[in-house]
């Protein structure tokens, strides 16, 4: 069983600037966890602290019971795939891959055999004598992967490894990475800013911002039940509407928005609803209706965008600008007064801004 990685109360600084703020994270043995966030959120810093390139100012890092915190980087035995591959330009593909084996004092003949074997696995057996400059982006990526894997590290880390590849190759490579990681049963940390990439490859994803983890959960939970407004926006809940409960009737809750409009919500579908809360909805979670009804959010139609299967509308409401969806059969012009009906399967409940 691969060892678990655990960070507890880790902080890190660049000069006087704090980059990581009391961060705790546990990656179970054999699990692939992604650190997801925009640039500057601290995800790469977390990776560098685990690798030992940046010292943790507080906190401890352990891997399978070994305390890594004070161990120099070259003795941590972590395989890393770097963003720009970081291949040694002056060494051949074979020597690149054998580098780590040489550091471990392996005999030349064994080194050559191990390197050849891993190069075969990543499909580069015919390229061992080439220099990195003579390889394509995808091939370099595979060499970097082989170089990190060949030393059989208990922990693998990936720093935006796919960001320099084109879209199609990126999808192929992430499947390949996932297969190799699962067949070796290695514990892995994957850093990316690409939500689709993180969700498709990971067992669990940590969404980061300003050096903190906002939510650490399975992709499914993150996608359907974001814990706060930051995560909600990040996974596509672009509409956030503050509401107040005015009446409870079993599972059905009557709520009121700014300007006094009424909205009926079902706790059986949305989960428990506090007295003050925010309703988060993706564009698909707000359907536009021009029927004369007194339910839903009153809105004025602004710009309409054609998206193939539906229209998206930018609308003005008492709760601010929102994005809603309308059917192709019934295009609405700018200035129309409409109602927005939430589709509860595409919505979730968040704690109100003031209470967080």
């Amino acid at each position, binding site marked *: 069983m691969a060892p678990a990685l655990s960070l507890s109360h880790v902080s890190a600084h660049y*000069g006087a600037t704090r980059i990581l703020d009391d961060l705790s994270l546990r990656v179970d043995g054999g699990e692939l966890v992604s650190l997801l966030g925009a640039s500057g959120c601290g995800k790469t810093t977390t990776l560098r602290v685990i690798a030992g390139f940046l010292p943790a100012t507080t906190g401890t890092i352990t891997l399978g019971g070994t305390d890594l915190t004070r161990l120099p980087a*070259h003795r941590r035995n972590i395989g890393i795939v770097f963003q720009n591959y*970081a291949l040694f330009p002056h060494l051949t593909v074979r020597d690149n891959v054998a580098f780590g084996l040489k550091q471990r004092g392996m005999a030349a003949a064994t080194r050559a055999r191990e390197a050849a074997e891993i190069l075969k696995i990543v499909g580069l057996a015919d390229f061992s004598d080439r220099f990195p400059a003579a390889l394509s982006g995808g091939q370099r990526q595979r060499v970097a992967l082989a170089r990190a894997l060949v030393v059989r590290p208990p922990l693998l880390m990936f720093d935006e490894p796919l960001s320099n590849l084109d879209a199609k190759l990126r999808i192929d490579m992430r499947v390949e990475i996932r297969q190799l990681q699962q067949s070796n049963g290695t514990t892995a940390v994957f850093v990316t800013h690409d939500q689709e990439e993180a969700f498709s490859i990971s067992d669990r994803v940590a969404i980061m911002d300003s050096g903190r983890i906002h939510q650490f959960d399975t992709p499914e939970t993150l996608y359907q039940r974001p814990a706060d407004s930051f995560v909600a926006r990040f996974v596509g809940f672009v509409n956030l509407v503050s509401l107040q409960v005015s009446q409870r009737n079993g599972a059905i809750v009557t709520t009121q928005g700014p300007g006094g409009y009424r909205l009926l919500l079902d706790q059986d579908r949305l989960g428990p609803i506090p007295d003050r809360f925010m309703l988060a909805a993706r564009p698909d979670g707000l359907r536009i209706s021009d029927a004369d009804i007194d339910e839903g959010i009153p809105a004025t139609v602004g710009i309409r965008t054609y998206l193939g299967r539906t229209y998206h509308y930018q609308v003005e409401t008492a709760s601010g600008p929102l994005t809603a969806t309308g059917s192709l059969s019934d295009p609405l012009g700018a200035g129309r007064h409409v109602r927005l009906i939430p589709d509860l399967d595409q919505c979730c409940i968040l704690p109100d801004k003031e209470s967080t």
Partner: protein
Amino acid sequence: MIRRLSPPLIGFAVLVYIFLMGPLIIVIGASLSDTTFLTFPPQGLSLRWFDRIFEMAAFRRTMVTSFQVAMLATCFALLVGIPAAYALNRYRIQLPGWLSTLFVLPVLVPEIVLGFSLLRSVQVGAGLPVFSALLIGHTLLVLPYCVRVISASLSSFDFSIEEAAISLGAPPWQAFFVVVLPNIRSGVIAAFILAFITSINDVSVALFLTGPGISTLPIQILAHVEQFFDPVVASVSVLLMVLTVAVMAIVERTLGLTFLTR
């Protein structure tokens, strides 16, 4: 051949280049003269003034000294300059900004002032031997070139390559020698060459730091020109130009000459 340039502009540039190359061609011509005085065009072709260089003990001796000083000063400057350039690039955030200014300071201080000050403080004040003082002066003279050229090649070096080596188990010092140094090799060669040629050509520093029996080639040339007006200096000049051509060929091979316009 030339895009969007008006003929007068091209003509001007041609004149400038004639101005630049002309005097050097004249020196080459003068070195071939058979006469005992300097003249151009040469009267009677001969290589005898090249033989004369090596017959004259003063030229022979100063050539050896110049070569020794240039070699040693360049090696010392690289020895302290490479770690400094590495630290400036690798630990940019941790080190104060004035540190990089410190290493270009020898460029800001007039060479002739450096020479005179070293004479006062080091040679006379501290009583260091002439050769040592000369060596120190030239090491300082060439240090900025070493730091700057190696910094330039380190600034395009991706330090994650070094981190990759460390993550694979190489201790930092080993990672430097196995991964960093091979990748800045051309920068080191260029620094070596620029430093060497700067030291070989120096007048202003050596002017004060020569003594009985110890002088450099440029100082010897100056002394000779002030007494004699024979073609031997032209021949020495041609030898120095040959050295320059050789150096340029090496720079071109390793880096491409456009390196020098950056």
